[in-house]
Structures are given as C-alpha cells and as structure tokens.
C-alpha cells in the first residue's frame, strides 16, 4: 500500500508551504522518520520526516512548488507499486473558470508556482526561445500555464517587469538563489520599510544595576541555569510595556488597537537568515521561565525545529546585536504588524557624569524604531524613559 507524502500543517495558521530541497531522490529507500524533504513557510524551513518505510516512488512537487496544506508532494511504496490512485487524487489547479483571463488568473495569478517538475523547470519551447533571446533567467520566472509551465506570456510579463534579467556581468565568487526564507525576509523588510513611517530614538543606558543584579541572582547557580542579560532585558521591556503600553499597538484598517497580550518577538540569527520566535505573555512569566524559554527557542530556531505557531503573534520585538561588540546604535526595521522594535547594542565601559563626577560605567546602546503613523515621538520617548528606569533600577522590574 503506497503512502502519500503531503504538505504538513506546521502550525495552526499555516495554509500553504513551499517545497524546499528534497533530501532523497526518487528510487531511494526510506525508513519511517528519516528526514526526507524541506518545507518552507514565510517564517521557517522545516525538515519533514518520511511517513513510512519504503521506496520514494515519485516526487510530485519539485523544489519551489507552493502547495496548500495537504497537497501531494510525493509517494512512498514498494518497487513497481501502482500509485496512480494517489496521483489521481491529488488536487489540481481549478480549470472551470469561464474565460481565458479567469483561467489564467486561477492557474497562475494567485498562487505563483515556480515551474518546476521532477527537478526540471517546465517551460514551453516558445517561452524558452523568447527567454534566451532576451537573456532572461527563466528559472526565476513563475509559470502560469498548466502544471505551472512557463508560457510565452509569462516571459513577456517578466520582460516587462524586469524579472530574471541581469545587466551585471561582474565576475562572481558565489551565487545564491534569492528564494525561500531569504526572499521572505527580503520581501517582509522591504514591505515594512515602504509601508510605515519609521523613526528611531537612540539612547545609552547604564547597565551597572542590571549586571550587578544578574551577578547576585546567578551566584551559586550552575552555568546552565544562569539567567542571561537577554532574559533580564526582555523582562524589563515586558514590564515597561505593562506600565506604559504605548508601543504595544497595531494599525488594523482604520483602527489603532492597543493589544492586551505582551508577546515579545526575539530576533534570532540563523545560518541562512533570521527568524523571530515569540515569547508569549512575557510579562506574566517568571524570570527563570523566560530564561529557559529564550534558550529553548533560540536553540530550536537555529536547528529549524520551530513550528509556525511559535513565530506568530508577537506584539513587540527585540533585536540584539550586543553580542557582536561592534554596534552601539542602529535603525532596526519594524516587524509588521507591530508598531515598534527595540534594537540592543553592545555594552562597553564609557566615561559618564554621575553626580558631577566623571565615572566609568558599562553603557549599552538602545535604538527604538517606531511607526510614526500611530505612535508619536513624545509617547515613544516617554515609554523609553520607563524602560531606562527599569534597566537602571532593575529592582523595579519585579514590583
């Protein structure tokens, strides 16, 4: 009995996923649970395990194919087994539209499917010739023909839009495809940059209080249980939002909503990009719990083991470059639909004036980017003042 490999639902909100790299080829034998294929959403890339023992009989959805949850990706079974029933049951693009334009829209306009099949790009001869004549990389063009085939129209459209063309003939060391998570990040960043009115406030805060508190808390603890600066900062931010929710807002149509939950997104660098897992109700959690959760999310995030639900629902994000010891302030880009993001820079000893005396203090750079459409400079500054008070007088975090 052959088994279908279908697009998994990696989170409650997931509706579609993109097939990533197949880690096995057609004809390879598989053990149940063995990693088989990568699946990408706009937030994560997950490795999917084989649902059964057997032979990978057919790869239906090649790398780059976008499928609905449950869509057929391939089939596993015994050598020579008839999988026509599985293939026949696979949903196909709706073709019942009653005009040519509608047919095109249904097959290509909405879900853009890169035209790949069995590892080979599907392109009509006419489209291929046109692409070659115009020096277009047609592998970057989405196909709207039957089975995702790239048609002459698609190339003409790509020509008009400048997709796939390169006038840059400088020699390259390496070429990476702009796809998957990389492309999702790129598109999200650009969408954020062009869709909100971003302003960034910069400030230095004295970290001596929080570092002293941390030392005190961690005394006698095993390394693995020690509370991180990140955990303390996250707790401080969550408490500051609790006191002054000015930054915990979102623009929804013609309403500016102040959100009830304080869910802190935590930007984590991963090998091919960046993910933002979410610490839910961070204000309600104990410091030790938050500390554990941060470690767990970061660890699983770097291994691509997070599910989509763990990346959804942030109301405010912290992005921390402090560890690199090279940046004081920067201008982080807001993670929509959030209204603000806090950039954390390095902590370095600097001379500061305290009570009329110049003293050396560990100073940390903070950069608060916010969407000026819904949050003005003054309330943002007021909120930052609350946060600075929390950080410089960390006992207040726990009041």
């Amino acid at each position, binding site marked *: 009995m052959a088994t279908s490999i279908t697009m998994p639902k990696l989170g409650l909100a997931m509706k579609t996923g993109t097939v990533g790299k197949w880690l096995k080829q057609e004809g390879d034998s598989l053990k149940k649970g063995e990693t088989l294929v990568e699946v990408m959403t706009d937030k994560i890339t997950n490795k999917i395990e084989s649902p059964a023992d057997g032979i990978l009989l057919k790869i239906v959805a090649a790398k780059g194919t976008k499928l609905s949850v449950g869509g057929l990706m391939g089939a596993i079974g015994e050598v020579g087994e008839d999988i026509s029933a599985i293939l026949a049951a696979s949903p196909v693009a709706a*073709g019942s539209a*009653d*005009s*040519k*334009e*509608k*047919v*095109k829209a249904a*097959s290509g306009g909405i879900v853009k499917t890169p035209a790949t099949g069995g590892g080979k790009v599907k392109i*009509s*001869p*006419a*489209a291929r*010739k046109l692409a070659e004549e115009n020096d277009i990389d047609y592998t970057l063009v989405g196909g709207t*023909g*039957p089975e995702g*085939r790239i*048609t*002459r*129209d698609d190339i003409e459209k790509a020509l008009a839009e400048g997709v796939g063309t390169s006038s840059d003939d400088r020699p390259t060391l390496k070429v990476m495809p702009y796809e998957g998570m990389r492309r999702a990040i790129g598109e999200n960043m650009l969408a954020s940059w062009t869709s909100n009115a971003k302003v960034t406030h910069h400030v230095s805060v004295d970290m001596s209080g929080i570092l002293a508190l941390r030392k005190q808390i961690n005394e006698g603890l095993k390394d693995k249980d020690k509370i991180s600066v990140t955990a303390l900062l996250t707790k401080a931010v969550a408490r500051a939002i609790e006191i002054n929710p000015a930054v915990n807002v979102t623009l929804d149509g013609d309403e500016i909503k102040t959100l009830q939950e304080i869910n802190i997104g935590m930007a984590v660098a991963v090998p091919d990009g960046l993910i933002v897992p979410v610490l839910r109700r961070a204000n309600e959690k104990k410091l030790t719990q938050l500390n554990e959760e941060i470690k767990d999310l970061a660890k699983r995030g770097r291994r691509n083991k997070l599910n989509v639900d763990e990346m959804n629902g942030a109301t405010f994000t912290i992005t921390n470059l402090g560890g690199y010891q090279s940046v004081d302030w920067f201008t982080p880009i807001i993670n929509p639909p959030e209204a603000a993001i806090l950039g954390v820079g390095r902590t370095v000893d600097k001379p500061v004036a305290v009570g009329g005396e110049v003293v050396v203090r560990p100073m940390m750079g903070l950069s608060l980017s916010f969407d000026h459409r819904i949050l003005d400079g003054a309330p943002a500054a007021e909120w930052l003042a609350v946060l600075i008070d929390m950080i410089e007088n960390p006992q207040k975090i726990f009041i």
Partner: protein
Amino acid sequence: MKQMTYAEAIRDGMRVEMQRDPNVYLAGEDVAQFGGCFGVTGTLYDEFGPQRVLNTPISEAVIVGHAVGAAAAGLRPIAEIMFVDFMGCCMDELFNQAAKMRYMFGGKAKVPMVVRTPCGAGMGAAAQHSQCMESWFTHIPGIKTVMPSTPADAKGLMAAAIRDDNPVVYIEHKQLLGVSGDVPEGEYVVPLGKADIKREGSDITIVAWSWMMQKALAAAEQLAAKGINAEVIDPRTLIPLDKDEILKSVSKTGKLLIVHEEVKTSGFAGEIAAIVADEGFDYLDAPIKRVTAPDTPIPFSPVLETAYLPSEEKIIKAVEEMF
C-alpha cells in the same frame, strides 16, 4: 454562386469535368440508373449515358483494378467504392499497383484516377460501415488523399482530383452529404495541397478536416464566447499537406490542437504533430494535443457511438486544458 448540398457539389464537380474532358468517366456499384448508394452520382447517367457512367459487378478489386488499367492507358476514371470500410478488398490494386506504377515505369506511365468513397460514423452503421481511415492512404507514397468539409471545397477539389495525373483517394463524409452551402458555378478548381483558414483567430490553432472541421468551427464559436479566439485550419488535402499554413498559424498562436474522426494511434494527427514539433518547435507555447476517436472499433449502440465520436464538448475541453 449557387446553393448546393455537398453531394450535389461533388456531382457538379464531376459533371463539369466530364463535359470538359471526354476521357473522364465514372464507374461503381449502382452509380448509373440508381444514382449511387448515397445518391451522389444522381442524374449523371441520364446526362452522359452508359459509355460514361458504368455499373460494375460487386467487386471492389474489379472497380479499382479496371480503373488502374484504364488510367494507365490514358482515360481518367472516377471509381466509386460504396464505403471506405470496403477498401480492404481492393487494397492491392490501390497501394501496390496504382501507387507504384508511375515510379516503377520511370515516369513513362501516369495513373490519373480518382477513387471516391464515403466515410464516417454517426449513423448507427456499426463497425464495418462507419470508419474513417485516411491514414491508410496517407501512408502510401504515390497516392493523394482529399477530404473536403464544405460543398464548395467538395466541388473544387473534385475537379483538381480528376485533373491530377496521379491516383487520388477522394473521401466524402456521409454526415456532410446533405449539408448545403454556396458553390461557384461552372469550372471551379481548388488546388490540392492548399489549406483553407476557415476561421481566423489568435489564441490557438485547431486543425481539422471533413466532418470534424464543422465540429471544430462550432467549438470555436463557443470558445470565443469564453474569451479564447481559435484559428481553425482545414488542410482539405492530407497528401499533399499544406504544412506551411499550419506552421504559420502556430507561429502566431503558439498552440496546436488536431481533431480527427479516425482512431488516435497512427492517425494523421500524429503526423501533423510531428511536423510541427520538428519544424515549429520554437513556436510552441503548450504541448500539442489531439482530439480523436478512441482506439476501438465503432460501437453499434447509438449511445456508445456518440461517446466514441469527437464532439464540440471534447474539443472545448481539450482547448481549455491548454490554457
């Protein structure tokens, strides 16, 4: 112009050529006083007499065999075979004698003969009286194959077939015999090997002939209402084939659908598809598709016969799948 049925137009084509050339004569089963099994020869016996319109014995081998000899000796016979399904009985005379003679005699002998024969299903005539078998003839070098779809083409192609110095198999569709249309009066010749664009379009090329031509045109009208503008090309003669017109059309539309009533495997659509894949590969924006009868004898049951035949709906469905 005069309104004529397809059958009348064939008869008019024969009549005009018989008047023009005393070497043209007609022979077949019941073609004389009776006027032909489907009435195509009609009154020609009364007009031209027993020397020019001859009844033959019930022997296809005699009908075609005598014509080969007469043609080689200088006459221009039109031999009627009552159903194309009976061609098996005279195949040696046709493919080994008529088709080869001009080549084997180094061009010294000509075989200017026409074999007229009706084809086609849709009349509940079952497996032995309903076939379309044009590929049997297109596969024989030395024979020309003509399949008109309109009364005017039926007349003009009949004239060209008679005037041609080679054996021509002229296949009439039984479903078309009663179809009327404008037909030029007097001498009228449609050259063999010249396709006709029956409907201009820009989105897809549909190649069809004989009865399927009419189905393709009807389908094209319905497709137009759905926003797909099909160009419908009637090659009119399969050998010689006007491949230039087909390639020109595909270069414009990028898509090709071929419709024929004969069965799919080894059908002439495969030949056209191969030519376009070979010589027009870079024009293609979609795989070439065929709508044909399935690879099975024609069923007697009217319900199954309807299911067997290519239809407007099948053409429309095939076209829509290409977009």
